[in-house]
């Protein structure tokens, strides 16, 4: 096949169907990441089939084959998902059915149906990804589908495809202000309206519900954002930026986990089990979806977000897995002391696996015997870690048989999980109740804005020990490793926040890189704040503030609806003005206007046109009366005649006529 014949095929194809197929193909693309190949592959094959049909290479399948294909499609979805209900299976079924519909899209009605289903596919993509990139990408898809709609409704008109695209651009541009109005003012109903079938949580990023130091030989360097924080109060000092997450109490020799995830505090509010000092930190966290139920907060949270509970280990557990970006306001006391009389059942915090860490147990006994109380024992163990040649590394050796002993006595190389795990083991071996706490530590301010970023690479694990008369106390064994034994500069900055600035390189390229990096993060943050997480609560706050500025002190949905209606009316009127152009509706032909003006000028010079006198006769007569102006007069009349009486008058001719009349004086 040579190029020119292919071009002819494209030209002969129905333009609206080509636009539609392009839109659908782009709409389906993101689903390759969220749907199984068993569903996507047949869909793409069907799409290509239709494309080849449009280009007259292939025929559409006959009815029996279509039925067979439908059956195969449903079967493929069923095999791929094991069910036909639920979010993923539903989306998969929609995608397959849409592509099957392409096999029998003939009538006008079918094209409308397929374009409509195309918009549905776009919406299903948003169920899996609401990033700024996806938003822009899907705008492109909507543009293509709208262009298909225009090409479709233009019938047999001879509009160029470029005109169709232009029209799409105009319509989208005019729709944007209305969309913004609707988005910000349309009263948001807190969903869901009915309970949604829950899928098995997809692969989440971030912290997991167990911890196995020694199983990982490479700490991932995942730079993606875990959550962003907006502080209303001054930032807590770097040493206090511990963001509490899942807590582990049980160790089987390899893995730390929490066997009692459903043990919640009795009261939903924080009961005064602990004493606090200092001012509370007030802040709002925007948490990226991580498919688990933990909400993070600075140690120690003082309030609970909506739809969440507090476990006995001070974890905040949401009632639903976090599958979408959420924003919640928090209050924490970074200086706290748990109540002395808080003496829960401590036995579970002393649990140790039967057959491992024998050497470590011996070490704990030895060290414990040298000191009198638990607090001093904690210091002794920390000194032990600081003095012995322990290294902090992101590439620790695998610990195959007895992770605790191998780490403490053979390799002495590891990252936070190794240290937290070994430390808690030693504590328990010496009879001090202890637990492993995971979460995030540190984070950084976006220098271009007012919020704080905590990344996945800030994930951390530390320990908590229960001391008689003091309660739970946070101990971070990683922090005692001397700087020279930390392998990477970046980790040094993270582990020892007070040394920030030492690792900075003055390289301008890095500065620009950092600038762009934070600039982009800022855009993402704004997108999250104003688009992805614009929910009922945010809308209330935003509008309350807006109305407060306008002098109202209260807003409810009635005002929102009136404001919305007024706004829509205003925008529609503005758009109507720009496209209907009511001032452009004069009934007179502009050539006629110019001619009337010409006659007016002549009458001022004393030459009156007789009512029955046509332009040519009139020109003849005036030309005879004023021979010196005869040429101009005849030019004007010729232009006028051409404008009025030829089949296709041109703008250029009209302009000439108007100019000639303007310059004419008798």
């Amino acid at each position, binding site marked *: 096949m040579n190029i020119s014949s292919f071009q002819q095929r494209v030209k002969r194809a129905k333009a609206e169907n080509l636009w539609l197929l392009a839109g659908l193909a782009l709409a389906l693309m993101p689903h390759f990441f969220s749907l199984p190949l068993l569903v996507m592959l047949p869909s793409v094959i069907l799409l290509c089939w239709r494309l080849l049909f449009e280009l007259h290479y292939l025929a559409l399948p006959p009815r029996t084959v279509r039925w067979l294909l439908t059956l195969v499609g449903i079967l493929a979805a069923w095999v791929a998902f094991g069910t036909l209900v639920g979010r993923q299976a539903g989306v998969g079924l929609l995608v397959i059915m849409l592509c099957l519909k392409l096999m029998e899209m003939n009538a006008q*009605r079918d094209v*409308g*149906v397929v374009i*409509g289903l195309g*918009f*549905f596919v776009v*919406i299903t993509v*948003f*169920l899996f990804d*609401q990033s700024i990139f*996806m*938003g822009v990408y*899907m705008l492109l898809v*909507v543009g293509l589908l*709208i262009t298909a*709609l*225009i090409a*479709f*409704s*233009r*019938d*047999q*008109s*001879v*509009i160029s495809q470029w005109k169709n695209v232009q*029209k799409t651009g105009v*319509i989208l541009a*005019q*729709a*944007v202000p*209305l*969309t913004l109005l*609707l*988005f910000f003012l349309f009263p*948001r*109903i807190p*969903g*869901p*309206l*009915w309970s*949604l079938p829950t899928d098995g949580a997809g692969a989440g990023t971030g912290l997991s519900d167990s911890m196995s130091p020694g199983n990982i030989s490479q700490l991932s360097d995942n730079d993606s954002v875990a959550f962003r924080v907006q502080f209303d109060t001054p930032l807590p000092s770097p040493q206090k930026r511990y963001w509490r997450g899942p807590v582990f109490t049980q160790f089987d020799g390899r893995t730390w986990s929490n066997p009692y995830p459903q043990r919640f505090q009795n009261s939903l509010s924080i009961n005064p089990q602990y004493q606090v000092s200092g001012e509370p930190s007030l802040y709002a966290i925007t948490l990226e979806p991580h498919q688990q139920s933990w909400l993070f907060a600075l140690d120690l949270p003082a309030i609970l977000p909506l739809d969440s509970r507090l476990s006995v280990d001070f974890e905040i557990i949401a009632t639903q897995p976090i599958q*979408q970006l959420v924003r919640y306001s928090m209050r924490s006391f970074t200086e706290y002391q748990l109540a002395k009389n808080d003496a829960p059942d401590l036995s579970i915090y002393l649990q140790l696996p039967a057959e491992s860490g024998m050497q470590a147990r011996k070490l704990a006994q030895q060290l414990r015997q040298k000191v009198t109380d638990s607090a001093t024992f904690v210091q002794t163990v920390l000194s032990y870690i600081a003095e012995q040649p322990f290294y902090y590394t992101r590439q620790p050796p695998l610990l195959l048989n007895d992770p605790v002993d191998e780490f403490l006595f053979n390799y002495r190389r590891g990252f936070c999980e190794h240290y937290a795990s070994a430390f808690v083991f030693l504590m328990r071996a010496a009879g001090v109740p202890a637990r492993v706490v995971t979460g995030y530590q540190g984070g950084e301010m976006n220098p271009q804005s007012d919020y704080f970023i905590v990344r996945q690479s800030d994930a951390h694990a530390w320990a908590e020990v229960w001391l008689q008369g003091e309660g739970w106390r946070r101990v971070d064994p990683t922090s005692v490793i001397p700087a020279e034994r930390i392998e990477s500069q970046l980790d040094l900055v993270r582990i020892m926040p007070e040394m920030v600035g030492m690792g900075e390189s003055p390289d301008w390229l890095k500065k620009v890189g950092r600038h762009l990096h934070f600039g982009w993060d800022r855009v993402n943050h704004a997108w999250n704040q104003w*688009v*992805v997480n*614009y*929910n009922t609560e945010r809308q209330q706050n935003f509008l309350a503030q807006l109305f407060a500025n306008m002098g109202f002190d209260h807003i409810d949905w009635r005002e929102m609806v009136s404001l919305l209606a007024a706004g*829509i009316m205003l925008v*529609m009127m503005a*758009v*109507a003005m720009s*496209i*209907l*152009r009511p001032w*452009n*509706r*004069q*009934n007179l*032909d502009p050539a006629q206007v110019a001619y009337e003006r010409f006659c007016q000028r002549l009458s001022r010079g004393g030459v009156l046109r007789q009512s029955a006198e046509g332009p040519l006769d009139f020109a003849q007569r005036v030309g005879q009366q004023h021979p010196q102006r005869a040429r101009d007069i005849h030019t004007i009349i010729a232009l006028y005649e051409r404008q009025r009486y030829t089949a*296709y*008058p041109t703008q250029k001719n009209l302009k000439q006529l108007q100019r000639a009349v303007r310059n004419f004086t008798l």
Partner: protein
Amino acid sequence: MSRTTVSTVTPTNMSLRHRFSLKRFFAGEGSEPGPVFLAQRRVYILPSKMGVYFAAMMLIMLLGAVNYNNSLAYVLTFLLASIFFIAILHTYRNLLHLRVDVGQIPAVFCGEVAQVPVMLDNRHNAARYAVKLQLRGQQHVNTDVVADQWQHTNVPLLTTQRGRYQVPRLTLETGFPLGLFRAWAYVQRDVYYLVYPTPDQYHHLPDESSHHSDMQGDHGHGADDFTGLRNYHAGDSLRHVHWKTVARGQGMYTKQFAGDETIELWLDWGDLPTLDIEVRLSRLTRWVMDASAAQLNYGLRLPGVCIPLGVGLTHQHHCLQALALYNINLDVDVSSL
């Protein structure tokens, strides 16, 4: 020629009651004498079937957005809703402020499709696309009108009955650009058209001898004596063709005269007494056509109508018009349209 009186109410001077009458919505404005300007109140708009379907779809999308609390789903739903609203204006504008006129239609024979010339004058600097033109009960045609130009389109009108009729109501309709709405306007101009009876297939002209065919010679020259027939040659006057042999299918012969001679042929209703009225009219129409083609000097006699001898297209039209309007009460017929 009679004309029904039509009140010419323009949308600018109509009473409030008239303006909101449902009759306008379904039937249009009644017939009007001049070009029609499609002012705002003359263009109607409602969602099309596809528009209703899209509206339902958006509702489902909104439910989905609420249920999944998904902001970008909200954005998409609102974007589509906005496009929906904007489409109203675009579709409306596609017809608004057009000037519509219906031109004169040359008479046609019954059963033929008359081409009704429709002028669309667009004095707006935006083009109108995919405007569907349709006369009531007829096939439609699509047309575009470029910005600041006018466009002449022939709209088909199938004729089924002889007589004189008013051009039926013209509907201008458009769904452009998105097909989600249908805007339409009615135009009824007081333009009439004539439908001749269908000429039948009987080509035999009546026999001259059995009719009042006068042989008028050029007296004084003695040159009008019929001398015989010879084969027809190209260039011979058609008046001298011996039509009887042509009509019998025996070939063309030219009559030779000693002097000059004209044939005068009367086409008479009374010659066809056994036939039905419409069949008679069809036969007479055929005769008029044939006689005219042969450039004969012919006249037409109908009960109550007598068109004297004559030649030429105007004469032919007079005869055909008489046949078309025979026995038709114009007042009744026109007003019933």
